[in-house]
């Protein structure tokens, strides 16, 4: 009835752009949220004010008109990409691709929610979020900033959240209007997507919090109920209405299995939007490791070499040459465990950081670095680990790094046997 607003095809973004212009500047100077623009926008002439005057009690003072630009600026990078704080490197990659599609100008999923301005802002925030979160060092810095700022909600203009933030007395954002709990529930709510991305078994769907007041007695679990018709009368009536030809062709259970089988194959096929996890996103150039990064921890060069087991090959390893030469990392490099360790330390990361990003256990990482081959899992896993590890450190050609490491491993094992 009344809600049949379907027919009314007023362009959904007719009003927002006007209201959102002033918000564009809101990120910089502390500006009260009840900006004049918002105030005047509340009773827009186009909106049929039918429901309002009829209410016996008038609604509270006109709330500020929220624009999604404010919200977008208030979102953390994790919210922008809709990922958890502990999202793995691959999850970030996939979330980035999904988000880029979502906020592209052709996307039909957002055109009725966001104005083109807002979509463009969102797309650029997605880029920024990805650039920061894919980089372990930047990400750690950003995480620290989030922690420092309390709940994890970034300032408006999170890209500048690092220093000199105008946080106290800053612009109240849409997020500030929301409850603190909501900010965290925004994270919790992302579970579905994350699970899809991580391809883990889905979290159980929870039934609505409380039982409806009018249905105090829940039906017993149906599994326990005998398979009998619900009501006799209806059952008999039905028998007569069943057309014969339909009755003749029930689905055999095998067919169900078969179509499920095919569905499974389909699900695994590349038609899915999220592509192979191994591919490094091409939309942004992958920066090479900056071995001379100023904030890297001091190179503990000597420390690892005594721990090396395959010491026969140690001289070839890139560990030996002085620091500057490591920028020559490339096809000829032999990637030993100690070299990986050194590169990691250069990047200012400890094992926990890598573990958090890659979801590879500390133990396995340590075994890789120390080349404790006997404690490592099957070769195929280790290859995957090294690729992850290398991506995380942004060593060029992760697959090559893995191949090199494994080559060495095979040789070492071969020598022992």
């Amino acid at each position, binding site marked *: 009835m009344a809600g049949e607003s379907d027919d009314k095809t007023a362009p959904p973004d007719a009003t927002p752009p006007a209201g959102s212009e002033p918000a564009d500047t809101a990120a910089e100077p502390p500006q009260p949220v009840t900006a004049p623009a918002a105030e005047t926008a509340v009773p827009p002439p186009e909106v049929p004010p039918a429901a309002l005057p009829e209410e016996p009690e008038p609604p509270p003072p006109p709330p500020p008109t929220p624009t999604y630009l404010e919200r977008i600026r208030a979102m953390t990078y994790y919210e922008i990409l809709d990922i958890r704080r502990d999202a793995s490197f691959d999850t970030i990659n996939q979330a980035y691709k999904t988000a880029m599609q979502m906020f592209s100008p052709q996307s039909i999923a957002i055109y009725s929610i966001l104005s083109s301005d807002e979509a463009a802002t969102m797309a650029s925030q997605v880029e920024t979020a990805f650039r920061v979160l894919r980089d372990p060092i930047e990400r750690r810095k950003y995480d620290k900033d989030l922690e420092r700022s309390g709940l994890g909600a970034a300032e408006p203009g999170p890209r500048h959240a690092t220093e000199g933030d105008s946080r106290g007395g800053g612009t109240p954002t849409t997020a500030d209007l929301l409850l603190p709990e909501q900010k965290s529930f925004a994270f919790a709510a992302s579970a579905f997507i994350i699970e899809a991305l991580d391809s883990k078994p889905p979290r159980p769907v929870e039934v609505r919090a409380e039982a409806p007041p009018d249905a105090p007695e829940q039906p017993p679990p149906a599994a326990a109920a005998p398979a009998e018709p619900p009501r006799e009368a209806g059952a008999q009536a039905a028998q007569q209405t069943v057309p014969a030809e339909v009755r003749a062709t029930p689905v055999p259970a095998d067919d*169900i299995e078969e*179509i499920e089988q095919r569905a499974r194959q389909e699900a695994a096929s590349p038609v899915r939007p999220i592509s192979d996890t191994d591919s490094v996103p091409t939309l942004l150039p992958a920066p090479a490791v900056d071995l001379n990064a100023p904030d890297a921890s001091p190179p503990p060069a000597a420390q690892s070499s005594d721990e090396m087991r395959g010491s026969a090959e140690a001289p070839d390893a890139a560990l030996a040459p002085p620091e500057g030469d490591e920028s020559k990392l490339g096809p000829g490099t032999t990637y030993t465990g100690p070299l990986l360790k050194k590169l990691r330390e250069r990047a200012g990361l400890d094992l926990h950081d890598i573990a958090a990003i890659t979801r590879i256990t500390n133990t396995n990482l340590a075994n890789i670095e120390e080349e404790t081959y006997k404690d490592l899992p099957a070769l195929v896993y280790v290859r995957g680990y090294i690729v992850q590890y290398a991506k995380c450190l942004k060593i060029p050609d992760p697959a090559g790094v893995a191949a090199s490491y494994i080559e060495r491993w095979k040789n070492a094992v071969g020598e022992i046997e």
Partner: protein
Amino acid sequence: MFAFGGGKGGVGKSFLSSNVGIYLARRGLRVAVIDADLGGANLHTFMGMELPRTTLADFIAHKAQNIGDILVRTPVENLWLGAGVVKDLAAPNFKHSQKQRMIRSFRHLDFDAVLLDLGAGTSYNVLDFFAAADCGILVTLPEPTAVENCYRFLKSSFFRHLRNEEKDGRVKGMLDFAMTGEEPMRGPLEFIGQVAAIDRAKARQFADELEYFRVALIVNQVRSAEDRAIAPAISGALKRFYGFNVRPLGDIAYDDSIWLSVRQRQPIMAGRVETIAARDTAAVGKAIYGMVHEFRAMR
């Protein structure tokens, strides 16, 4: 209880509820599919059946006390049909108390799964049925208008859900305004933010309602890989800007065999199981089968 809705007409709600019903029954669940499209009933046709002697009209006219009394057996074992109201023109405007009675009776059905096939549009009946389900299943097409309607449908259903329980006149007024005026209220999060300004406890309660407002999504009639990217985009957008948790259940390919099966009045899951449509429907059915078990485990 699952309700298939989505605002727009002809998106495949009836096709999906009937065929998912068949799938679940074939998996051994006891299933009732109910035509809650009051006025535009056609679910029996999707099942390849004539209009049964007993329908929801009998329940509405108090000729039957329970929905269970009007259910009829279908050709598929374990599957029952609650046929809809075809000719009773008065039925769609039935009163709030009658709707409550109907929802109560849906809930009391002793089945593993109850699937409601809702009508098109955003009438209060449809919105309330959708919100009353344990999980509302949005059906949409990879088309701008269908997606837009689907968003509006979801928001309206959520606001209706809040309003049905609401006592405070001020909050009711805000909800009405949220539902009728398109701007400036754009979504539940903004709404909750505004409620927080006058009543924090209420806002917190609404935020909980939003989090537990279980919604799933099926994109029907997909024709390309780009189309298959739409479901995650929709759920991602609904999450980021409206705060809804929407679980994508899968896509259904556009497939002429669906059209043919409807025309031949033989449900695709009861015949042409080799088709792409059947395969996709089975995948969606399987996801719903999983949810049935999740719900049961929570009880």
